[in-house]
């Protein structure tokens, strides 16, 4: 079994290195194909492992070699394949294989073709390390690795200022979160004495609640960074600067879900500290609606999808926070499929509209791009959670969880968000594929993407449709290690009301979306319409002014402070004082060298003066010595 494990893990690395060989040379198909094939291999071996775990329930655990060992610290390169990680492995390998194949077509004309695949496979490798590692340090390796790769891929078109800026923003924001994670790791080490999952979690029940709370908080800060939870969310939307396959793979399916994975992975910790869990859940709920609201008005299809990702992550955190770890994981998996699909569809559209992103400039594309339309529509349906598609099973489950755990506020928030979700998803679907063909005004000549790209997307489509039916099997499997709580509203009445109600609500929203955005008189907004003048619109389109806020309150001050530190403190104070001392000596010399006037009689005067000075001192001392008694008397008289 180790063999499969290592293949699953290292095949992507090999692919990446292979592509990297061609890094400098002009684009060659081979640099794209070989990594894709290797990913296929990785996918197969992951499947084998999945089957094994599914059937036998055994887990594979290997320790490759020592990494760091000093003092009491011992960190190996250890990898584990258990129910949780195998899920992630499946998701990662599957989606990335699809994306690779898709990208061969998508990046066809890009001169950075080879570089792209090197980065992409490298990303998959680090993601695999992240999910397969059996200790926190290994996790951190993957954690930083995916950060690096996403930096490289967001900034893939490095000649674009916005792209590179977004890349750095993403990296630095993740770094902020990583610091939290690092501290969490330190806490775990100094309290449990190991960084191995099993050891650490085994030791945790013995620890004091506040220690655990701190650990939980710091680890979650790490998770917030990767999963772009508020307030560290701004980078995700900007990350859409990267090529669309990247968005599909990294910023929808895999990397951003790492945070959820972390929380699920440390469920034993979080189940000890429910209050932190509740906080996570609340934050999740907030982010869900917060992101959805921004998605309502945005005029950039990729950003809309990004926000929806954000909001779906919120759902997952609600589930995880409320202790329904397997639900979170399940939604993670389902979401990965349809969200990737959605992104790839958006990619096709972009291709067709040569990188135009404003849906208002499209419309009626359905005629030219049937395949894409079908896929995106189905994906949106799934996302909206209509029976019997994947979204229904995973998402509504989360609602039920909230209900059963009696967190009605969270429940209602999520419910409302479900409506919003449906609305904005179909808003863009409508704007893109239906209604008047506005793109003609802008002289675009859309065309459907390559066949094989569509074919590549089809597995995702398939899964997006049927994933829901795996629910029970999955439950059986994953609850080997996750707390097995069935979430069922036992009162059938309420259950049905809930379900039907939700469905109706969602459908209504969809209907409204179509009604508004399919109407003939949709114009490209020019900032004149009443809605655009409204405060709410401004607030939303500007992402609640949070990016401006960050720019004003962190970025600018930091830059100014740095300049100040350099020009003022470092040069004017620290350095100047050092030079000042030296200068002082030199100046003293310059000023006193006049003493050496070179005139003989001055010299003689100096000698005599010196002698006289000494003499007077001597006399004073002598007198003092002689009359010491009297002096004492006088001093005592003075009361000294």
């Amino acid at each position: 079994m180790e063999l499969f494990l290592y293949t699953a893990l290292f095949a992507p690395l090999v692919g990446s290195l292979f592509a990297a060989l061609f890094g400098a040379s002009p684009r060659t198909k081979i640099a794209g194909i070989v990594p894709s094939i290797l990913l296929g291999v990785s996918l197969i071996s992951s499947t084998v492992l999945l089957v094994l775990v599914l059937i036998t329930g055994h887990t594979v655990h290997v320790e490759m070699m020592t990494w760091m060992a000093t003092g009491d610290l011992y960190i190996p390169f250890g990898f584990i394949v258990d129910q949780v990680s195998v899920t992630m492995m499946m998701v990662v390998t599957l989606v990335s294989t699809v994306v690779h194949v898709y990208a061969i077509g998508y990046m066809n004309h890009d001169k950075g073709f080879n570089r792209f695949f090197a980065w992409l496979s490298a990303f998959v490798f680090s993601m695999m390390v992240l999910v397969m590692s059996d200790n926190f340090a290994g996790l951190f390796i993957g954690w930083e690795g995916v950060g690096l790769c996403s930096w490289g891929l967001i900034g893939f078109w490095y000649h674009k200022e916005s792209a590179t800026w977004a890349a750095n923003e993403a990296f630095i924001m993740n770094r902020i979160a990583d610091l939290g994670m690092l501290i969490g790791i330190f806490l775990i080490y100094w309290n449990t004495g190991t960084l191995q999952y099993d050891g650490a979690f085994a030791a945790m029940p013995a620890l004091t609640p506040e220690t655990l709370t701190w650990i939980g908080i710091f680890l979650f800060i790490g998770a917030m960074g990767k999963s772009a939870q508020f307030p560290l969310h701004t980078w995700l939307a900007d990350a859409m600067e990267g090529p669309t396959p990247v968005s599909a793979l990294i910023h929808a399916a895999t990397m951003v879900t790492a945070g959820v994975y972390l929380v699920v992975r440390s469920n034993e910790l979080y189940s000890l500290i429910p209050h932190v869990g509740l906080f996570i859940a609340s934050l999740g709920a907030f982010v869900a609606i917060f992101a959805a609201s921004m998605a309502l008005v945005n005029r950039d299809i990729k950003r809309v999808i990004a926000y929806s990702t954000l909001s779906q992550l919120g759902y997952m955190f609600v589930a995880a926070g409320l202790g329904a770890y397997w639900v979170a994981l399940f939604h993670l998996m389902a979401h990965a499929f349809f969200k990737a699909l959605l992104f790839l569809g958006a990619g096709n559209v972009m291709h067709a509209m040569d990188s135009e992103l404003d849906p208002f400039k499209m419309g009626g594309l359905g005629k030219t791009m049937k395949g894409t339309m079908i896929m995106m529509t189905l994906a949106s349906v799934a996302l909206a959670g209509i029976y019997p598609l994947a979204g229904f099973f995973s998402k509504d489950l989360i609602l039920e969880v909230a209900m059963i755990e009696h967190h009605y506020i969270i429940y209602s928030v999520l419910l409302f968000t479900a409506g919003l979700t449906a609305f904005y998803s179909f808003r863009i679907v409508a704007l893109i594929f239906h209604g008047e063909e506005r793109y003609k005004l802008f002289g675009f000549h859309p065309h459907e993407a390559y066949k094989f790209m569509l074919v590549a997307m089809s597995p995702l489509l398939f899964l997006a449709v049927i994933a829901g039916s795996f629910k029970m099997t999955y439950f059986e499997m994953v609850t080997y290690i996750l707390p097995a709580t069935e979430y069922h509203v036992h009162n059938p009445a309420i259950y049905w009301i809930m379900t039907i109600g939700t469905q109706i609500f969602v459908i209504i929203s969809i209907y409204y979306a179509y009604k508004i955005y399919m109407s003939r008189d949709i114009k490209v907004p020019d900032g004149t319409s009443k809605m655009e003048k409204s405060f709410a619109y401004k607030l939303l389109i500007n992402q609640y002014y949070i990016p401006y806020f960050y720019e004003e309150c962190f970025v600018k001050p930091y830059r100014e402070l740095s300049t100040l530190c350099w020009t003022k403190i470092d040069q004017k104070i620290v350095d100047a004082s050092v030079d000042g001392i030296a200068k002082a000596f030199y100046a003293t010399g310059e000023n006193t060298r006049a003493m050496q006037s070179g005139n003989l009689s001055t010299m003689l005067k100096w000698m005599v003066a010196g002698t006289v000075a000494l003499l007077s001192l001597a006399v004073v001392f002598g007198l003092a010595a002689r009359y010491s008694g009297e002096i004492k008397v006088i001093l005592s008289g003075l009361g000294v």
Partner: protein
Amino acid sequence: MEIGLNHYLVLSTILFSIGLVGVMRRKNLLMLFFATEILLNSVNISFAAISHYYGDLTGQMFAFFVIAIAASEVAVGLGLLIVWHKKHNSIDLDTMSMMRG
């Protein structure tokens, strides 16, 4: 009153001070040498007086040595002075300040 040791000492101190003042004030090299002579001889007086007071000859020996040394100093000094005068035909101190700082 008859003259005691202290009077001699006071006298020599006064002479010494005069010598010092001369050394400081005089700008003429020759006068400067005279002043130094005064210094040494003032000391001689008190040496003689003290040795008489203690009644041993050491002091007077010292005085003799001082005289001898004074003489040789004058010899060297005048030599230098003459050379200087040849070169600059002046023996004013202020002419000699080529080196300074």
